[in-house]
């Protein structure tokens, strides 16, 4: 029937690459039309709700923060309750430089925030990612608490519990005034930053590196068995994730013109985790959906009925853990499979 050795590789690789599975892998990274929707909606929001741009900016920052967590959690499988450590680092980097008049240019300020948070991510990653499970979770919590207490201890420089108020940020491009009064400038600025970061994350996710991260998440032991330097990959991923979280923190400090210890709160870290799970982790757009859903609900409900909001949130988490661990996007998948059009590519 067939020869006892492998056939020599046929140069007609086209027939192989024409296979639907190959085609899927080769075109997965292409931009789909509906990927423009979130951005169109964001621009639309700008024109449609000029009074809500402050909320809009908050929402965009939440999306960026959740996106950073998705890299670590959704793609590399690093379970952390301490991601606010990097958010806070970025926030204080920007905040302290601005408060002491050392550096107020916003865009480069974000680069500094990214570098600062990235360094913290690299150092803590090198050390923490030797562990896993509960130990790792504990260590991420402790790192975040440690940074918070550190900022508290250095209250002469950081303003301690009260923080650093009235940060002055230089105008964007030297032209557009930047302070909370100019919510439109802040919104567009934040949107631009989010877009750049998103494109970066998207490229990363579809790259061979991103693919290996997925492998690590899916089966760690198998990755070891194919010779993958797993820990190195995890540390790199964690560092990048930290840097982006730092940018989110920097944006938060800049747009609020204020920074305090709440940047490092457990509450904040838990919230970003909830947002990501709610939307669906490992899915790139889960961060968008989760942030919109969460913040919209929180904005309307939490203010009016804070206790009911907390109860509802708790119930939601329990239900998600039991029945819908892949969040809204996951539910969307299930519905699509059952009632949607059957596509050739899955």
């Amino acid at each position, binding site marked *: 029937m067939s020869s006892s050795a492998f056939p020599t590789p046929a140069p007609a690789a086209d027939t192989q690459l024409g296979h639907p599975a190959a085609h899927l892998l080769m075109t997965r990274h292409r931009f789909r039309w509906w990927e423009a929707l979130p951005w169109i909606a964001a621009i639309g929001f700008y024109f449609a709700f000029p009074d809500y741009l402050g909320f809009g900016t908050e929402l965009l920052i939440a999306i960026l923060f959740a996106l950073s967590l998705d890299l670590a959690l959704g793609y590399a499988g690093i379970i952390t309750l301490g991601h606010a450590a990097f958010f806070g680092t970025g926030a204080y980097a920007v905040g302290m430089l601005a408060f002491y008049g050392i550096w107020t240019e916003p865009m480069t300020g974000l680069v500094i925030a990214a570098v600062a948070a990235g360094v913290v991510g690299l150092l803590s990653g090198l050390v923490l990612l030797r562990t896993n499970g509960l130990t790792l979770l504990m260590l991420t919590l402790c790192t975040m608490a440690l940074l918070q207490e550190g900022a508290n201890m250095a209250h002469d420089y950081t303003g301690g519990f009260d923080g650093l108020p009235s940060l002055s940020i230089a105008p964007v491009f030297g032209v557009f005034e930047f302070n909370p009064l100019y919510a439109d400038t802040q919104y567009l600025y934040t949107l631009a930053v989010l877009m750049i970061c998103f494109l970066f994350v998207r490229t990363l996710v579809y790259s*061979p590196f991103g693919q290996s991260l997925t492998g690590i998440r899916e*089966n760690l032991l198998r990755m070891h068995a194919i010779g993958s330097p797993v820990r190195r990959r995890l540390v790199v991923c964690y560092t990048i994730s930290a840097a982006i979280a730092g940018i989110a923190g920097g944006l938060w400090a800049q747009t609020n013109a204020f920074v305090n210890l709440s940047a490092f709160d457990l509450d904040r870290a838990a919230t970003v985790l909830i947002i990501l799970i709610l939307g669906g982790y490992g899915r790139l757009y889960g961060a968008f959906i989760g942030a919109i859903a969460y913040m919209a609900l929180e904005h309307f409900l939490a203010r009016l009925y804070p206790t009911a909001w907390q109860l509802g949130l708790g119930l939601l988490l329990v239900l998600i853990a039991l029945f819908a661990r892949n969040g809204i996007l996951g539910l969307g998948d299930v519905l699509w499979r059952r009632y949607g059009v059957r596509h050739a590519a899955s």
Partner: protein
Amino acid sequence: MTETRLETRALSRSFGALKAVQEIDFKLDAGARHALIGPNGAGKTTFINLLTGVLRPTNGSVLLAGRDITATTQAERVKLGIARTFQINRLFRGLSVLENVCIAVAERVGAAPSMFYPAGRRTDIIGESMELLETLKLADFARHRVSELPYGRQRLVELAITIGLKPAVLLLDEPAAGVPSAETHIILDAIERLPEDIAVLIIEHDMDVVFRFAERVIVMVGGAVFAEGTPREIEANLQVRAVYLGQGHGARRD
């Protein structure tokens, strides 16, 4: 002259007072088709773990193409050319069959750390993976998620990933384990058609598989080599029969 690909010298591993592997001298040449058999608890999987670097020996050394690799890690040994399959599948169950193989091939060719272009552009990797699937008759399943496949095919994917690493030495830990007998031939065909040059060691309980493929059989009992020889010699060996074959393990060849 055939080269010695893999060699061990007085390789030993103890767990406290338990001597799991004792002073094993072992050689595997290019093109070898060896089988390792023995009762449960004889230390076969421990031996494989020592060869692949999952475990460190308490004594002795492992050499690859003459070079001492005893101190290297599992990942390093894969890069040096030793690959293995596991008794229980270790696959990326949520990903497609093709992607499972692509990840391994990408790792091998060194594409995996690249961050700034889409994996989809590496048509060389995707093409090579598809060809491999063709050869193993898995092409029809390329698009399916591994978790959707019947167990026998999943076992084949395990083999495909390992072959995709283009190893010089291939260690197969009970490749037919758990596979329904109706599907066993799939695995056997694939093993039969491995590149001639690869040095292969199979751990097996199924004597059909052993007799079909092995030029040489090593019997391990209590952590030490009990007997060695061609399949016929081993089958005729009364001591081996008493210790192992005679106890009803596996099928007898009549």
